[in-house]
């Protein structure tokens, strides 16, 4: 049972994808399989979380090969929380794509690829082996490439080429880093690496070098300051059902790997990493939010905000106290949901009005009041206004920063919050508040069926908003769990003992 619980978040999407391949000709069957897989995945990941919450870290050895030799799968609170958030997001995106994605793309394997992408997310979160982590990131990269290029319009191919080129570079850095680690320490199992780097025989300079390779690799994947430029260039090109999922979760998986490695393995030389992370976090926040301020397209503003929010997650790692890491974890969960939801809302708007340009939109407050409320909640959550979810993450990070007297980074983060409100207000003013600009009325006419579709598109947005409100208004259990997860992360002995059975 123990082994089954950890494997289920990997097996369910995999079997879903395989069954969808068997029904290659029938989109309807793929949809049914997909929804079943999503529901099962959600249930399985909740079961995993409850199990870990009761019994501590769970591990399994694939193929019964014992720990430092075989592939280990480890589920601790942090990974289980990301898996759950991923499955909630997957479900919402999935519901959205049934009506929100054109038939041609659905026929050419959208559903199997989406499930394989979720498989990659679960795998990257659950693996306890460095090379296996690399393989899961390859799975993510290939699926994102297929999804971004699916449909083959000109801007999509342009975005896909940028995305793939830079991410292949990141993958190479990752491989070099893995090579250096294996060459110096002679192991790839994360738990054994954590033991080996703490022995006096370890060579600190080489380990630092490997750590920097990992920082560059996952820095590109997570879109950290000097390496983020590919993200706003590619994330807005595919249809919204695709970019919502990719934008919501893939960069955060990079962030997950960064937090995992820099709390477990590369912790020996914190005089180097902590100032570096602090500087990177500050620049990522500021540059991202400034980039967003200069944009005039719904999706591009949101894409730049992904970069800025990554800075907050990195800030938790830079402060490196239990509270800060907990803040980071909470912020990742909050951000995955809110960002996906905002992208989905932009998709609903575009489905109704056929454009993402702020100049051409307007007057939605009168036409779609429900959507306006949903956007209002999500945007305020993103900006971090008190009762909503973003506030708690930022509050924990700021408090942790004040506790260890890192005033500069806290001030930067608070200023960036203000700028985020400015951006969200810009979208609010342009899309919802201002009078509708005069356009050709023929473009706006919707048939009865299209109106029904548009109403159905609200469903996933409402579901996501309920989850966002839940983790915002009833934050206590989520925050408590994030703190437990942070303690597990910072107390590496727990992880090492669970894997190596000492």
């Amino acid at each position, binding site marked *: *049972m123990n*082994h*089954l619980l950890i*494997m289920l978040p990997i*097996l369910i999407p*995999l*079997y879903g*994808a*395989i*069954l969808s*391949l*068997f029904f*290659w000709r029938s989109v309807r069957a793929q949809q049914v399989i997909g929804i079943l897989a999503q529901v099962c995945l959600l249930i399985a990941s909740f079961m995993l979380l409850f199990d870990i919450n009761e019994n501590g870290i769970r591990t*399994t*050895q*694939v*193929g*019964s090969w014992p720990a430092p030799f075989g592939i280990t*799968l480890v589920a601790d609170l942090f990974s289980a929380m990301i898996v759950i958030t991923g499955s909630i997001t997957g479900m919402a995106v999935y519901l959205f794509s049934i009506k929100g994605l054109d038939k041609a793309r659905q026929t050419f394997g959208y559903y199997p690829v989406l499930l394989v992408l979720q498989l990659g997310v679960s795998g990257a979160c659950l693996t306890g082996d460095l090379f296996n982590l690399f393989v899961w990131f390859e799975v993510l990269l290939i699926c994102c490439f297929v999804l971004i290029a699916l449909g083959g319009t000109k801007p999509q191919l342009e975005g896909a080429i940028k995305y793939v080129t830079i991410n292949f570079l990141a993958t190479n850095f990752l491989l070099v880093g893995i090579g250096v680690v294996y060459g110096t320490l002679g192991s790839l199992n994360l738990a054994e690496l954590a033991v080996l780097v703490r022995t006096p025989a370890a060579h600190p300079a080489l380990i630092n070098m490997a750590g920097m390779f990992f920082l560059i690799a996952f820095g590109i994947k997570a879109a950290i300051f000097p390496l983020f430029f590919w993200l706003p260039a590619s994330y807005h090109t595919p249809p919204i059902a695709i970019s919502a999922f990719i934008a919501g979760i893939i960069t955060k998986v990079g962030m997950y790997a960064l937090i995992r490695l820099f709390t477990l393995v590369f912790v020996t030389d914190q005089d180097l990493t902590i100032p570096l992370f602090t500087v990177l976090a500050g620049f990522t926040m500021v540059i991202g939010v400034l980039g967003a301020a200069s944009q005039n397209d719904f999706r591009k503003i949101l894409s730049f905000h992904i970069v800025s929010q990554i800075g907050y997650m990195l800030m938790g790692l830079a402060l490196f106290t239990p509270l800060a890491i907990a803040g980071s974890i909470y912020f990742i969960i909050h951000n995955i949901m809110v960002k996906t939801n905002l992208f989905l809302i932009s998709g609903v708007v575009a489905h109704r009005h056929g454009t993402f340009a702020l100049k051409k939109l307007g007057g939605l407050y009168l036409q779609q009041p429900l959507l306006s409320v949903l956007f209002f909640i999500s945007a305020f959550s993103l900006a971090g206004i008190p009762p909503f979810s973003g506030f708690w993450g930022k509050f924990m990070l700021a408090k942790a920063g004040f506790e260890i007297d890192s005033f500069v980074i806290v001030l930067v983060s608070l200023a960036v919050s203000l700028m985020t409100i400015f951006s969200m207000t810009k979208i609010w003013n342009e899309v919802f508040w201002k009078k509708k600009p005069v356009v050709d009325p023929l473009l706006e006419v919707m048939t009865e069926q299209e109106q029904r579709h548009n109403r159905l598109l609200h469903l996933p947005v409402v579901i996501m908003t309920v989850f966002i409100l839940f983790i915002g208004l009833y934050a206590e259990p989520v925050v408590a769990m994030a703190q437990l997860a942070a303690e597990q992360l910072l107390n590496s002995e727990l992880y090492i003992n669970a894997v190596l059975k000492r």
Partner: protein
Amino acid sequence: MKTIVLATAIRILIPLFIIFSVYTLFRGHNHPGGGFIGGLIGSIAFVFHTMTHGPQHTVDTFLKLNLYGYPRQPNQSRSLYLMRMMRVNVWRRRKMARHPDMKHHMVRIESVYIIATGLFLAVTSGVLGLLSGQPFMHAYWTDFYIPVLGKPGTPILFDLGVYLLVIGVVLKITFVMSEE
């Protein structure tokens, strides 16, 4: 590229390739070989056939199933009918094909189905261990030994899955590229 030498040679080579690929597949556990390389060797046969005769001919030769059947009688139960149909298609097919009531259907095996079958076999070989309380991909071996092929066990199922997967992918690539 239709040359008579290749076209004649390929007829003898195809069974050779396939037998050798199956041999490579089964010896892979303790010697060089296995599902991936076996699948590649096996797909060479189909690639050569496509190169000489074109993709349509390859599909007609290897990837079409002839199925026979008659419509279900109104008073016949569904399960009985299904079993009848299975028997008709397995047992004494030649004779059945000449039967006047029989209808003839051609089913094309798409390469995506081969891929899916391969993936399914590979994953399921891992799940077998999981269901009996062992970790994923725990191996079960039989006690007896088959002369050329070796000891059967669940890992051979995994290799078989990889074999089918590789053949399916190569076929798909070959068909797409040769049609352009």
